[in-house]
């Protein structure tokens, strides 16, 4: 009898302990989990989050925002979601994101995260996303390919750039000198935008359509010329270009710092490929515009839909985005820049990081993203540029139509 009592008591205590130590559940939705190069890192780190059972859900980047919106509208609980910078205004406007000041504390955030980056995730005093990695989308070159073609210096002006592209083409007719995205309106819009900026054009000014200008036509005409001369391939998007870059078939292309990590994977050479990856300031046109790039960041957010375990959400976000050692591991394995003050300080000697961050100072935020119907505006801009690049419309027609359609959409 005594033995039975002891056993029962023991069982009760065990159950209580287990209950206390029972893990919280968190769903973590992102696209990095669906990409081969980043999957292992995410899986490893997710397992290390204290006291939280993280369920990882992956979607390709192309389907990501659509699925986030679907989850929000259908009330599906999502503790943590990876969000691209350009989607933030839209999601905040929809009320889809929770104010992380409540869970993580504004002070703690201000202490740990680099202030400029932290500010990118703020709106009306609320912190709707914690920057997980931040830099810019800039031109990345392949040093090996350049040297093989006799391009010894990074081109500084548009003429130099043009000449460099021609040299690369002459050295290797099968290569794609400039891997500009020429399919998928979303990508076309983001990347071509940089050239539009560089030539002094803007899509919008003060909330009104401003793309109907001589500068815009000049920029587009330049890109069209590159396509016509075979220096830009038709029908490639960034995924295809990344694959070709890894095989040494692309001279320059647009990518955020993930470029290095992806190239390690796709080239099959691992870290040995690193020295080929070089970031370069966008060539200037002599009009005073500094070398431009596009602000780029991944945020970790918590969706308001359903019944999220906010505490668990906080723990996951804190682990990935606020712990310097985790951030440094992210950097080491994937080449993604950290956002915490401590981690950034550690990397101040690294040339790759230092160069890129220096360039990012002149980066501008994606123009359509500021609007509610950014998806529609991006689609319009991308479609019209695509039409011009593929020779379906003349530069003039494309710009005029773009301005018309944008006016109609605002």
């Amino acid at each position, binding site marked *: 009898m005594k033995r039975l009592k002891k056993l029962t008591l023991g069982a009760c205590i065990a159950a209580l302990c287990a209950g206390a130590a029972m893990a919280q559940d968190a769903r973590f939705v992102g*696209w990095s989990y669906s*990409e*081969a190069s980043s999957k292992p890192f995410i899986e490893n780190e997710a397992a290390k989050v204290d006291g939280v059972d993280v369920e990882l859900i992956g979607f*390709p*980047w*192309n389907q990501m925002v659509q699925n986030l919106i679907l*989850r929000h509208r259908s009330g599906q609980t999502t503790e943590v979601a990876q969000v691209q910078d350009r989607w933030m205004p839209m999601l905040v406007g929809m009320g889809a994101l929770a104010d992380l000041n409540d869970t993580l504390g504004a002070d703690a955030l201000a202490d740990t995260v680099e202030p400029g980056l932290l500010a990118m995730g703020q709106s009306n005093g609320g912190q709707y996303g914690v920057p997980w990695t931040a830099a810019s989308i800039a031109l990345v070159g392949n040093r090996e390919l350049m040297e093989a073609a006799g391009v010894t210096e990074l081109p500084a002006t548009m003429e130099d750039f043009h000449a460099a592209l021609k040299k690369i083409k002459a050295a290797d007719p099968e290569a794609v000198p400039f891997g500009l995205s020429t399919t998928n309106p979303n990508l076309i819009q983001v990347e071509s935008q940089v050239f539009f900026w560089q030539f002094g054009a803007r899509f919008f000014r003060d909330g009104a359509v401003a793309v109907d200008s001589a500068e815009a036509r000049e920029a587009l005409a330049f890109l069209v010329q590159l396509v016509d001369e075979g220096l830009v391939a038709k029908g490639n*998007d960034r995924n295809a270009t990344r*694959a070709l870059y890894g095989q040494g078939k692309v001279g320059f292309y647009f990518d955020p710092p993930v470029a290095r990590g992806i190239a390690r994977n796709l080239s099959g050479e691992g870290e040995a490929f690193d020295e080929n990856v070089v970031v370069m300031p966008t060539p200037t046109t002599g009009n005073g515009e500094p070398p431009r790039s596009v602000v780029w960041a991944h945020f970790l957010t918590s969706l308001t839909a359903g019944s999220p375990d906010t505490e668990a959400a906080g723990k996951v976000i804190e682990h990935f985005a606020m712990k310097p050692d985790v951030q440094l591991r992210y950097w080491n394995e994937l080449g993604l820049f950290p956002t915490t003050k401590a981690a950034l300080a550690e990397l101040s000697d690294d040339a790759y990081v230092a160069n890129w961050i220096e360039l990012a100072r002149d980066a501008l935020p994606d123009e359509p993203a500021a609007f509610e119907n950014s998806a529609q505006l991006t689609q319009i801009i991308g479609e019209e540029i695509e039409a011009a690049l593929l020779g379906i419309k003349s530069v003039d027609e494309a710009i005029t139509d773009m301005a018309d359609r944008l006016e109609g959409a605002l």
Partner: protein
Amino acid sequence: MIPLSHAHERWILRILIAVFVFFLLAPVVWMISTSFKPPEEIFRTSPSLIPDAPTWRNYLRAFTETDILKYLGNGLIVSSLNAGLTTVLAALAAYGFAKFRFRGRKGLMLLMISAQMFPYAVLLISIYPMFQWSGLFDTRTGLVLAYLVFALPASIYILFSYMVNLPDELIEAARMDGAGEGLILRELILPLVIPGLITVFLYSFMWSWNDLLYSLTLITSEDKRTIGPGLLLTFLGEMEQDWGAAMAGSVIVSLPVVLVFSLLQRFFIQGLTAGAVK
């Protein structure tokens, strides 16, 4: 058939046979061929039909680096459930329309058949909020229900054509003998239309197996994905240029329907054409 007396007519026939067989089958052969090629042979501007160094690499990649088996499993579950339910419902409804008279019969039947003209993408606009509030969103059950309405109209029509030709005397005789309606349906009618039932089962299975739009929109969790979105989303990202794996995945995903179909094709063609064309 038309008797061909002249030699050149027979030649024309032979050429036509060759052209059509080539047109209809060559692409499939090419798909299979590509699936066995290593990347060096795929990324060549002058490819060959038979791989010089055939490899299982692509299939291995498809099995280990993608979740294709999971997608196959989900697809089989959803499609089989859908096919089963559709067959039962269609058989009941077809019998009702074919052998009974009740008010509104013609109108109802016309209404249900006309559903084939409703644009599916438009339907989706309302179905997904409906599914959200009823908790069916992102569930395989929800998908099964959504698919039901795809194949139902055509299935009812196919079975209707079968049953309408069954002699009324048989049924009357059974009734005279005191058999209940349910018994008549189960023991008398259904055995007589088994080919039609098989046709309808296959037809609705195939429809849901092949679907992309609904499964892409109504299922958002990776572990519940079926084959359409599974294939598409897997090869949209980093694996975009991996045509070898994409072709291998395509072959894998096509096998179940091809298998099932080849076993039961006799009934299928018979059933499809029986009603529509007399």
